[in-house]
């Protein structure tokens, strides 16, 4: 019995380590590569090591245009604008999705009847994105929204709205009505109940839903590829362009950019970790 549980524990930790290795090794490899000079990351180097032998910030300097490093390429644009574009479109897209999604979820959770609308919203996601993107390109071109961060933010908001809606609806459904009734019975108006009681109590739910939606928007490639051309390309689109005819893929530069791209979600995750861990303790209920 004892032996069995020990061998089970060994197996368990081995499985965990394997899973960690599969996810972490490539990530750490990227982080290490970001600080390697070209000789160490290119195939020509043929001398791959875990730690950079000559750590350098050249890759970062390169993508921000202050150095051409040892590459005999000059970029036609720097990473600054794509980072700004990604930030603006993802943040405002998240705002659009969260505000519309939260309002719709609250309305349907408290006053809605039937399941048709919620299901219809999720069905939007069953559509292959490619099938809708061309019509969207035409519409965006008509509206003059192509190649702008606000055009991207709008489509991001629309595309992630079902997620925001469904996440928030689940949270609203779980929140006991008695808490709102308790405020209503004191003479509080519906609007005030929503603003002063419901939303504040929903803070953890809002934070985790917003993070989820933000990550979806932040990592989009397809939509940005089709809807931006030059001015407002986002990080993923820009990253794809980091190659040269002479050296092929610029892995070092891509790694540096990838590292930068990982920062916002990680920072947000840490910032709301308290909420994510604490979860939802509505009204300290029995049940």
């Amino acid at each position: 019995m004892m032996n069995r549980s020990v061998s089970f524990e060994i197996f368990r930790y081995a499985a965990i380590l394997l899973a960690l290795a599969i996810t972490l090794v490539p990530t750490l490899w990227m982080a290490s590569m970001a600080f390697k000079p070209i000789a160490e990351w290119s195939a020509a180097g043929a001398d791959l090591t875990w730690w950079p032998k000559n750590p350098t910030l050249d890759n970062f300097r390169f993508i921000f245009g202050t150095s051409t490093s040892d590459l005999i390429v000059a970029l036609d644009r720097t990473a600054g604008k794509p980072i700004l574009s990604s930030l603006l479109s993802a943040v405002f897209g998240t705002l659009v999705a969260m505000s519309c999604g939260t309002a719709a979820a609250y309305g349907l959770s408290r006053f809605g009847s039937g399941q048709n609308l919620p299901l219809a919203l999720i069905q939007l996601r069953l559509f292959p994105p490619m099938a809708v993107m061309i019509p969207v390109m035409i519409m965006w071109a008509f509206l003059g929204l192509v190649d702008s961060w606000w055009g991207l933010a709008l489509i991001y908001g629309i595309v992630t709205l079902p997620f925001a809606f469904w996440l928030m609806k689940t949270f609203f459904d779980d929140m006991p009505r008695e808490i709102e009734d308790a405020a209503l019975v004191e003479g509080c108006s519906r609007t005030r109940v929503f603003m002063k009681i419901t939303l504040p109590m929903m803070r953890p739910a809002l934070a985790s839903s917003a993070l989820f939606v933000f990550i979806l928007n932040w990592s989009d490639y397809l939509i940005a590829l089709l809807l931006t051309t030059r001015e407002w390309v986002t990080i993923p689109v820009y990253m794809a362009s980091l190659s040269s005819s002479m050296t092929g893929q610029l892995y070092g530069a891509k790694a540096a950019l990838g590292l930068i791209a990982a920062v916002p979600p990680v920072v947000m995750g840490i910032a709301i970790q308290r909420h994510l861990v604490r979860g939802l303790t509505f009204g300290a209920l029995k049940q």
Partner: protein
Amino acid sequence: MTAIHLENLVKRFGAFTALKTMDLEIRDGEFMALLGPSGCGKSTTMNMIAGMESPSKGRILFDGRDMNGVAMGRRGVGFVFQNYAIFTHMNVYDNLAYGLRVRGLPEREVDGRVRKIADFLQLTPLLKQPSAKLSVNILQRLAIGRSAIVEPAIFLLDEPLSNVDAAFRAVMRTELKHLQRQFRQTMVYVTHDQLEAMTMADRIAVMDHGVLQQVGTPLEVYNDPVNLFVAGFIGSPGMNLLKGSLADSDRGLVVDLGELGRTAPLPPQLAAAARSNAGRDVVYGFRPERVSLSETGEGMPMPVTFIERIGARTIAHLGTGEQRVKAVFDNDVAAESASTVAVAIEPASVRLFDAATGVAIREA
């Protein structure tokens, strides 16, 4: 300090009728308990009084004023929810102050009243604590305090003690009664716990399956249940109810209980009522506390199935087949399982019910 009048109140949820034509007068300053098993319609009734649900039919009057269409915030009721519904994003102080702030009272007055009610409910040391991590007992007091602080004319409590531990429940029963005496509100208290209803209420409204069964003082519903449901529901254990039929004997009218034999003659007034009743099939009822074991061997012989000794009391399980009897004694009794004892029932405690309708047969 408001009388509540429920007039032909009906509540349907789709095809389901939660409440069937209820009429109830709750007097000004009265402590009324709505008592019944879960699903009996008591919470629905309460929610309609508060204005959270609107009646399908009928009217709710506060001091003669029709409340139909009056928003719940304007009815002047306080409501304590079963799950407390504490605002967990606020601390204890802000929870208590909530109702007063909604009403726009100046902060100085809010502060004074919060401190007063906190003192009364022994919450003073906890005022600055976040309310998310309080114990159930504290939450319960906080919920009462949050509603009581605005001194509502009508105080509605929905099973407020069902989640707290037994010892604290006993304390709160006393405190709630004390609270009501102090503020003299009209109090409506929903519970499935008859002990709470019996100890606190001025009157009890017993409900079952959406039908109001009986309204009366605790002793009235205990002593003179109007039907079989109330007889079986009130009391712990409930009234013994044995099926039988009326039979004449040379000593007067008795009830033939089949396997258990015949009862002692019914008291004259009850016998007269029974004779004028249409049916001959009756249910013979008596309280387990009104049974004694006869030393002389006189009385009905009953087999003992087992004896429960629970310290202060002894419960004897007697009878055979469907005719089961529980007898409660203050002290230990000299009866053993599998023996047969002679059972004497206090004649004045006997109640008869019509077997067909379940309605009590009462002296005219």
